[in-house]
């Protein structure tokens, strides 16, 4: 049955600011959904308060509302658009579902005659109310772990007595496992129980018997209105039950399930989805399987919406779940739709993979000093990476290379743990580095059986680690790269070892390994993610790299099969920003996507390289070609060698991409826009201050130190307070304000321990100054300032954590003129071609320069949204030399002010110091438009500023 005729205008709810547990995957799903609906001629209305998203671009929906996600906003929108027929709340995570429920309870949908599509309220209620859910599962014979619900402390105690320990406590109606904990000991129970009860908005907790060590799986389902159900992807958690799935290393397809057990699980999943209501859309089901002979399966939960896992599943399989789920919500059935990848087969099918994907979460514990770093039921990661390979080992290596934690993969970098007790501790108390500790344990000779006993990780996975170690040991017996046999080198590459790692094993340079590969014809080839294991020809240019053995044609020519055909069009590579982390998040993905689109408008074939599965940039229809690869030198260089682009855009992908500029430059690869020299000059404090001095621009007194002695000597010249920070960092990592010599010494020693061989920058800290920043586009001759923002908090709070207004709320004409003049002078002096962001401190009406970054900044998307102008698009065209700044007709539209409000995820880290400082801690931001400074919201923020000043 085709699309419903009665749905002409649909409201989509976004997920709001990025928080732990709800990140940019919902920008990906929302954007896909909007595109999908518009393809069908449906008028779309979007509400989302997160300005750093692609979905809130004016082009994405017919009407975009950057408003707080409240029922008040919903009512305003429904009044404005009485023609809205339906609301699709499944694309914006739990935030959207919760808002939808709230609006439903208030009768808003009914009042305005709006139908809920894609899910029904009953389904949300059943799946969120553990008691109801449990009852339902019992009815349909789906087993669950022993569990009970407590809405009082006393009841909780009774349940614990009945079940015994270990137990799991989960708070109802919460996100990302907030308030969830495992209780091993009776003594800890009371405190954790009260916390769960407190966190739950309805003051209710579920207490489960802990199924520790059971294998954990997730299935992604789609259902249409004819009740056809397909399983798009099965994801196996390498980390068994006990670690939140968002914090688990996960693998697709499932690696250790027999067909019989898998089919039982599949049948259960379908039965569960059919039981929770009669809606068409997507669904995520989680199961645990006992690792013994029984292979018992129990259901953990079901989410009737698009989820983080469905974004991963879409990237893992190529099947665009959000896009199809949206089509199903408006009445299509699966059999009527095409497989979006092959375009020749049906969407009613189950993707099959001929590769393996490994997802590894990215944590940011360093930002949360004092936080509990042990992984458990509550999600703590801030982002994730995905590696694709032709084996688990290759995918695992690629994922570890994508993390940007200064590791080159597993082992072979001299950074592994070697202390027995430390390794056992790392295995026992899983944290961000357990995946490395497993390898270290094997290297140390700890038996697999012992590692399994501690971690409960399936032996199959451990065996894969062991094979890697055996290969590393074998290769290490060769003392020169010359003597290493071809077969071994090929095998190492097939198993994902980086050139750098192999160089470490045979003690040579990375370039020598690369040259040896070249000589032997061991070439990286590219394969397609096509949903069907090559059974059908695919139309979608979504690639990953691998190494393969040779093929010989009938006429005797040998070759290695490469599916990425290079066209003769002029090409541009855009480097992505890798995993989300604090200080580098969705904003840069926004910039990359716009860079890609702008380059396409200029007639280039666009090539995207990124490894973050949550993003829009890695959607297969964003760029002309997508290479889902680590933003890691070796992979990038091989892609560039293969594609031979005109140049590489590095200034849109945050510090991840920027860091690669030096090497690109060294290898003679053209950097589009601002040159490497200029990028380097801006980072080098010495040269940069010379430049400022030459241009008569003031800056705080500063100095560079390489050790504590130098730092202490400098302190005498600079005067306290002093701001100390390492060079080449983003998000203020390691930044601190010190007020005396002891603090200084302590911090310098600490920094050099964490980041050895780094130069430290010491600035005289302008106490009580006002902070402001400007973003500008420069073509080398002309400068256009796109926006100036003033921070509401005083200097000393990281710009990413400050509330800020656009335009400034109390800077005088004199100060504003200095900001404008300095910005223009610096942009030109740095020969900027593209974007530049400059941060200022203002004291006694004098404007000092804190830093300049000739690249896209976190604030660019915000300014673009507030003014309704496509600045990244313009900047990209300038970078490419396609346009001059003077070619654009700038026309910013903003009445009143736009306030950027940071959002934190502190509730995930209860013991952490929540004081803000120079190191960024916020995970996301939202935008708030106010008509005048008399607005209460602004007044509140401004009040708080005084609190900081009085401290």
């Amino acid at each position, binding site marked *: 049955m085709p699309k419903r005729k009665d749905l002409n205008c649909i409201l989509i709810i976004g997920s709001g600011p990025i928080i732990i547990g709800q990140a940019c995957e919902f920008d990906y799903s929302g954007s896909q959904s909007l595109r999908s609906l518009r393809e069908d001629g449906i008028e779309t209305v979007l509400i989302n308060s997160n300005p750093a998203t692609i979905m809130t671009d004016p082009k994405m929906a017919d009407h975009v509302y950057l408003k707080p996600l409240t029922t008040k906003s919903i009512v305003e929108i429904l009044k404005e658009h009485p023609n809205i027929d339906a609301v699709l709340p499944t694309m914006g995570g739990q935030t959207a579902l919760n808002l939808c429920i709230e609006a439903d309870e208030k009768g808003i949908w009914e009042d305005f005659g709006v139908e809920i599509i894609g899910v029904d309220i009953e389904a949300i209620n059943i799946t969120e109310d553990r008691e109801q859910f449990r009852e339902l599962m019992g009815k349909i014979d789906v087993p669950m772990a022993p569990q009970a619900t407590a809405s009082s402390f006393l009841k909780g105690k009774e349940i614990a007595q009945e079940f015994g320990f270990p137990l799991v406590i989960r708070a109802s109606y919460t996100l990302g496992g907030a308030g969830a904990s495992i209780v091993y000991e009776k003594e800890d129970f009371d405190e954790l129980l009260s916390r769960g009860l407190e966190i739950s908005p309805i003051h209710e907790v579920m207490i489960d018997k802990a199924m520790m060590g059971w294998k954990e799986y997730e299935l992604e389902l789609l259902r249409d209105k*004819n*009740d*056809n159900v*397909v*399983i798009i992807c099965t994801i196996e958690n390498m980390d068994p039950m006990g670690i939140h799935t968002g914090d688990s290393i996960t693998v697709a*397809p*499932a690696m*250790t*399930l*027999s*067909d*019989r057990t*898998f*089919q039982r699980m*599949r*049948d259960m999943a379908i039965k569960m989805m059919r039981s929770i209501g009669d809606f068409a859309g997507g669904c995520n089901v989680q199961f645990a399987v006992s*690792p*013994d*002979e029984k*292979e018992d399966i129990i259901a953990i939960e079901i989410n009737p919406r698009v989820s983080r896992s469905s974004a991963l599943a879409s990237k893992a399989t190529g099947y665009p779940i959000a896009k199809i789920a949206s089509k199903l919500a408006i009445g299509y059935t699966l*059999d009527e739709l095409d497989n979006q990848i092959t375009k*020749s*087969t*049906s969407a*009613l*099918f*189950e*993707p*099959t*993979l*001929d590769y*393996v994907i490994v997802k590894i979460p990215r944590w940011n514990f360093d930002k949360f000093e004092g936080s509990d770093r042990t992984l458990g039921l509550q999600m703590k990661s801030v982002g994730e990476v995905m590696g694709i390979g*032709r*084996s*688990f080992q290759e995918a695992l290596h690629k994922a570890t290379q994508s993390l940007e934690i200064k590791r080159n993969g597993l082992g072979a970098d001299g950074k592994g743990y070697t202390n027995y007790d430390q390794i056992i501790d790392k295995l026992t108390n899983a944290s961000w580095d357990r995946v490395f500790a497993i390898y270290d344990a094997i290297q140390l000779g700890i038996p697999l059986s012992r590692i399994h006993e501690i971690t409960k990780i399936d*032996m*199959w996975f451990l*065996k894969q680690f*062991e094979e890697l*170690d*055996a*290969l590393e*040991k*074998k290769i290490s017996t060769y003392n020169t790269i010359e003597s290493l046999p071809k077969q071994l080198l090929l095998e190492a590459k097939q198993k994902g070892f980086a050139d750098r790692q192999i160089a470490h094993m045979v003690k040579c340079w990375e370039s020598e390994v690369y040259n040896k590969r070249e000589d032997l014809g061991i070439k990286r080839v590219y*394969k397609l993610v096509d949903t*069907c*294991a*090559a*059974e*059908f*020809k695919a139309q979608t240019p979504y690639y990953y790299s691998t190494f*393969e*053995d*040779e*093929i*010989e*044609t*009938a006429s005797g020519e040998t070759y290695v*099969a490469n*599916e990425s055909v290079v066209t003769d069009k002029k090409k541009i590579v855009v480097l992505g920003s890798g995993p989300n982390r604090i200080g580098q998040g969705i904003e840069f993905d926004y910039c990359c996507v716009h860079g890609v689109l702008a380059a396409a408008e200029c007639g280039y074939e666009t090539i995207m390289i990124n490894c973050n599965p949550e993003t829009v940039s890695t959607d297969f229809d964003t760029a002309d070609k997508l290479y889902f690869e680590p933003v890691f030198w070796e992979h990038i260089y091989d892609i560039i060698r293969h594609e031979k682009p005109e140049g590489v855009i590095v200034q849109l992908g945050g510090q991840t991409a920027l860091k690669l500029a030096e090497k690109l430059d060294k290898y003679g690869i053209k950097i589009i826009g601002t040159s490497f020299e200029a990028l380097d000059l801006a980072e080098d404090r010495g040269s940069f201050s010379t430049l400022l001095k030459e241009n008569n621009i003031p800056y705080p007194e500063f100095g560079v130190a390489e050790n504590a002695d130098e730092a202490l000597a400098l302190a005498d010249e600079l005067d306290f307070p002093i701001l100390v920070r390492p060079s080449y960092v983003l998000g203020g990592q390691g930044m601190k304000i010190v007020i005396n010599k002891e603090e200084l010494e302590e911090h310098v020693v600490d920094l050099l321990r964490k980041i050895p061989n780094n130069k430290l920058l010491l600035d005289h800290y302008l106490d009580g100054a006002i902070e402001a920043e400007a973003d500008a586009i420069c073509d080398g001759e002309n400068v256009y300032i796109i926006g100036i923002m003033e921070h509401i908090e005083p200097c000393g709070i990281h710009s990413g954590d400050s509330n800020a207004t656009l335009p400034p709320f109390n800077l005088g004409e004199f100060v504003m003129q200095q900001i404008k003049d300095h910005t223009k002078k610096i942009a030109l002096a740095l020969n900027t071609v593209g974007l530049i962001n400059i941060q200022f401190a203002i004291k006694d009406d004098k404007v000092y320069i804190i830093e300049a970054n000739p690249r896209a900044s976190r604030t660019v998307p915000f300014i673009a949204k507030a003014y309704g102008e496509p600045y990244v698009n313009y900047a990209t065209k300038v970078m490419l030399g396609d346009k001059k700044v003077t070619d654009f007709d700038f026309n910013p539209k903003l009445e009143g002010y736009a306030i950027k409000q940071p959002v934190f995820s502190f509730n995930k880290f209860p013991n952490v110091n929540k004081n803000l400082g120079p190191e960024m801690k916020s995970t996301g931001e939202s935008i708030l438009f106010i008509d005048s400074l008399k607005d209460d919201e602004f007044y509140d923020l401004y009040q708080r500023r005084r609190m900081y000043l009085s401290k």
Partner: protein
Amino acid sequence: MKYQEKRKALILLEDGTIFYGKAVGDKQSTAFGEVCFNTGMTGYQEIFTDPSYFGQLMVTTNAHIGNYGVYEEDMESDSVKIAGLICKNFSYVPSRALADDSLENFLNKNNLFAISDVDTRALVSYIRDNGAMNAVISTEVDDIEGLKAKLAKVPSMKGLELASRVSTKEPYFYGDENATYKIAAVDFGIKTNILRNLAKRDCYIKVYPYNATLEDLKSWNPDGYFFSNGPGDPEPLASAIQLAKDILEENVPFFGICLGHQILSLSQGISTFKMHHGHRGINHPVINHTTGNGEITSQNHGFAISREDAEANPDIEITHTHLNDDTVMGIKIKGKNAFSVQYHPEAGPGPNDATYLFDQFIDNIKHQKLETV
């Protein structure tokens, strides 16, 4: 664990193309067959022991094979039926509490040669573009001419009758003899899961050799007839085609799967053809025209029945169609109590979406019984 070196191996296709890889285990061996691929991500043991794959060199597209070893209850017949295995990554050490053995030992016991580390994706694309063909897998990497000469002598699958090679020689029984229904099943290479599915539905089954006659079958007085799956070209199976015709005259409920479906079609004058490279996997979408619903099915066939013939035949109703390429997936004979499907509702491996067909068969038997009472 020490690093294990592996011997070089290859797969040579009939047209002279060679894909290189490594031998699984410490083996020097050679095996011939028609190369085909299966896209299932689970169920390798079921595939390898499915008699329908007799004579085929199996390319598994899943990146890893052997992860969970082998288990007695996952057998689809008494032994490995494929002619050889070509895979990407082979797991030597299984991980499953239930596993009886590793896949490597299991293949060794069945004298099956396997090669790994082949660019299976390139091989599958090649078969997709150039069609199924005969091939050889071997460790004789230095004697390509010799392999070519031997390969040339291997007969083509087209016109090849293979059911006799895998069918039981003597009739045997399966299930509880006190069960309500008696099913006469003709074995062209029957999968055990079909028997399990029938037995589960209160059937007692007598399994007959492929060349059984109507008299043989009738003498047991069955409530329903079943034609199984099996390997090879259905066309040469003249006696079986005649048997299907004869059974229809009896008007006793009939159900055919895969090769059994093709035989039923041939008996109605519907021709069969060899497909370009067949359907083999557990994710094949089929639409049921009666209900309008889709189902995800397990498939394994290199031959299919002619849609043109089926549509032209007034006695035939097409009940199921493949959503990807429109091939006929199921038929019903009007006025007769007979239906058949091209795919595998018994699963093993694959989804259980179509097990309702067994229920339908039993329902047909029930109704028949009511009518004759």
